[in-house]
């Protein structure tokens, strides 16, 4: 069973991720009073990107960096339980996930650095600063979950919430859940925190020199990342899911909520984003952590 | 009706003897002056409320062998538009820059330098502006034959005018 889920989980994640891309374009279009592209438009895009030929090469580091990012994301997917499917998750996997989540940005940073474009290097520095901004509340919130559940296993943290709705992390640790929800756009890179890829400022930032199959891999990776972040949120605070169906339904709800925020806010400047992340989610997560520590003695 | 304009005319005439002032219509004032006293007239006008420099134009009078510089000033209080005109030599045209009086004259002078070849002393930014690697005569001069140039440069077919 576990062997099978190692194959099924990444496939499922890819499918959901591509569906998310299509859905996000369709929903955004409807908010903007447009009809929008067909739901399978991302598939067409990715197919097209894979068949395009670049006329130049950016060197081996560029190729490796992109693969590292995608590989890192696939590795994280294996550790995230979807309903009953557990993948590789075992005790201590929450720590593994936290560390693995550093891999994709690192890979993108390597590739963007190798592309030698000033826009890309500014984008990478913004990405790192933004990571600094959201890592603090995120780690505090995860610490609260770990202390409250007395576990470092994502699987156990999820399963302990499945007894009833009130057992969800959202109701047990409301402040930590709120803090994590507030930084979700920053982790995904959606507005108001899309300054990393801001096309109007730095011409899509790290992706500026990406074309053809590199862009295809990069967009798949970013879609996977979107799925990972939301799935992690669902697992930590919304009780995961008894089966894959309920789990994916919850993921979809959170995704649409993030998308609506994306549609009605402009973009922060870098320093404002940093200040916001540390001020509100940071404070909430800290208080949440203290509450968790007090309630568990 | 045009009292303010008349007052202004008398004021200029009293201070600048070689200036020839006309009032073509309401709100317009045209001063023709020699190039030596132009800068002092501009300073005088600026002190007198004409603080907005709208435009600097240049007109190429080919038959007379002269280039005419036209400075357009506007006074927000008096609501008068003054055109100060002077003529300079067409062969090796050069004139004083008025950047100390109006800072944004820099751009207009840059354009006139590029389009008419007038060198403004004191403007340090006479670098290519609108044209890219232009070779040949300044294009806005009257002796620049547009259609001949276009035919040679772009190989276009003969076309009825």
């Amino acid at each position, binding site marked *: 069973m576990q062997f099978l889920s190692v194959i099924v989980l990444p496939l499922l994640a890819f499918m959901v991720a591509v569906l998310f891309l299509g859905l996000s374009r369709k929903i955004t279009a409807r908010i903007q009073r447009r009809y929008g592209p067909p739901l399978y438009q991302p598939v067409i895009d990715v197919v097209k990107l894979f068949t395009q030929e670049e006329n130049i090469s950016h060197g081996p580091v560029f190729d490796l960096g992109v693969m590292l990012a995608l590989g890192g994301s696939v590795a994280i997917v294996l550790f995230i339980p979807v309903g009953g499917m557990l993948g590789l998750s075992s005790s201590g996997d929450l720590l593994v996930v936290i560390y693995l989540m550093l891999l994709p940005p690192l890979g993108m940073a390597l590739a963007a650095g190798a592309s030698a474009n*000033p*826009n890309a290097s500014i984008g990478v520095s913004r990405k790192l600063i933004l990571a600094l901004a959201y890592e603090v509340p995120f780690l505090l919130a995860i610490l609260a979950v770990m202390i409250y559940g007395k576990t470092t296993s994502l699987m156990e943290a999820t399963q302990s919430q499945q007894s009833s709705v009130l057992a969800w992390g959202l109701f047990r640790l409301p402040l930590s859940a709120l803090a994590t929800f507030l930084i979700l756009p920053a982790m995904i890179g959606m507005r108001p925190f899309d300054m990393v890829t801001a096309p109007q400022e730095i011409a899509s930032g790290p992706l500026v020199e990406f074309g053809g199959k590199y862009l295809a891999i990069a967009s798949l990776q970013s879609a996977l990342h979107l799925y990972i972040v939301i799935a992690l949120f669902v697992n930590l605070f919304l009780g995961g899911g008894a089966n894959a169906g309920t789990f994916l339904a919850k993921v979809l709800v959170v995704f649409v909520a993030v998308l609506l925020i994306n549609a*009605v806010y402009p973009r922060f400047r870098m320093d404002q984003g940093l200040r916001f992340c540390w001020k509100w989610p940071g404070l909430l997560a800290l208080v949440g952590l203290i509450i968790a520590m007090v309630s568990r003695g | 009706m045009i009292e303010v304009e008349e007052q202004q005319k008398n004021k200029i005439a009293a201070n600048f003897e070689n200036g020839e002032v006309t009032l073509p219509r309401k709100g317009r004032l045209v001063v023709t002056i020699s190039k030596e006293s132009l800068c002092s007239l501009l300073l005088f006008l600026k002190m007198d409320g004409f603080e907005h420099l709208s*435009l600097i134009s240049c007109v190429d009078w080919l038959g007379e062998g002269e280039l005419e510089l036209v400075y357009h000033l506007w006074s927000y209080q008096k609501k008068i538009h003054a055109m100060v005109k002077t003529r300079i030599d067409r062969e090796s045209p050069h004139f004083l820059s008025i950047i100390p009086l109006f800072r944004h004259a820099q751009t207009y002078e840059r354009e006139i330098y590029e389009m008419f070849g007038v060198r403004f002393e004191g403007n340090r930014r006479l670098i290519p502006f*609108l044209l890219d690697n232009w070779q040949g005569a300044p294009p806005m001069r009257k002796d620049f034959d547009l259609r001949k140039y276009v035919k040679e440069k772009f190989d276009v077919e003969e076309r009825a005018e």
Partner: protein
Amino acid sequence: MTRIDKTTTAAEKSRELEMFFGPQHVGMVGNFGIILTVEGDTVVKARANPGYLHRGFEKLMEYRTYAQNFPLVCRLNVMDPDPNEALYAMAVEDLAGLEVPERAQYIRTIMLELSRMASHLLWMWAYGNMIGFDTFAQWAMGDREYIIDLFETLTGGRIYHTYIWPGGVRRDLPPGFAEKTFEALEHIETMLPDYDNLFFNNRIFADRTKGIAVLDRDEAVALGVTGTNLRATGSRTDVRKDEPYAAYADLDFEVPTMEDGDSYSRAIVIRMEIEESISLIRQALNRIPDGPAWRKTPNPFKWNVPPGETYVKVESARGEAGFYMVSDGSDRPYRAHLRSPSYPTGIIVLEELLKGASLADVGHIMLSLNIAAPEIDR
């Protein structure tokens, strides 16, 4: 001491990046370029790089007859074409001594205000895009289509109209135009509160733009700034009030101003002008007199305008647009020179304001000045 200074400057130099902001850049509106010297996230130096749209307008006008110039002049500025038509028509009328019928003056006013609104809504699209607010941008662009449809009803063209003609306008208002205009205005008016809630009252918008790129009144005048940018510094100047043309002398309107002169004030002034334009068009449509909409002009093939020179000006969406024309009595203009409002703001003011700005703000500073590249390059 000198040696230490040298090393620091060398070290600083090595951290500076030269970036080309445009012409191929999403943050760029129009074909324009800025060469930025960036250190970290801060702009150290900015140089405007115009000329991508230069097509030698003034030279072309000298080679065309007065009638042939009409289709040309509206193409001076694609975002706001009608003020240029009005300028040229007014200059020719001034030189040739043509009288314009009262009805034509009113139709011109309606046309110019519609053009201003279309330009401002396009600006809202660009500004929303720049600050990362696609929803707002898309809505504004969708509403601009209502005005474009009015243009199409009136003139047959969506973008270029060639409508304002010397001696009047090209044709009278078509039947049902007033009703259609009132409907469109009502729609846009009902949308304005939505825009306010969505964008202009948005906390992030205010945070990002307040106190950015401040220009005070004296400096603005010294740099030749006009129009909305000057009104955002508290100066109540408007060519429509100072030197009324068309039918503006007969209509009541306020000139909206803001005090601070920053990016936020400039945006709010543009927002308020839309309301003012709506009221102006309503008044003009209600008070429009009967009579002819044009006066007969001489045979355009043999139209020799008397010699002379003139400078006319109108308030375009961006500020004072002026037209200097010299005629030598032949059938073509001897010299035509356009004063475009974007000319000072796009070059020297932009360079000043970008100094020390954050890289993230470059786009919206440029847009808050409402620069139109085709006007600069001509």
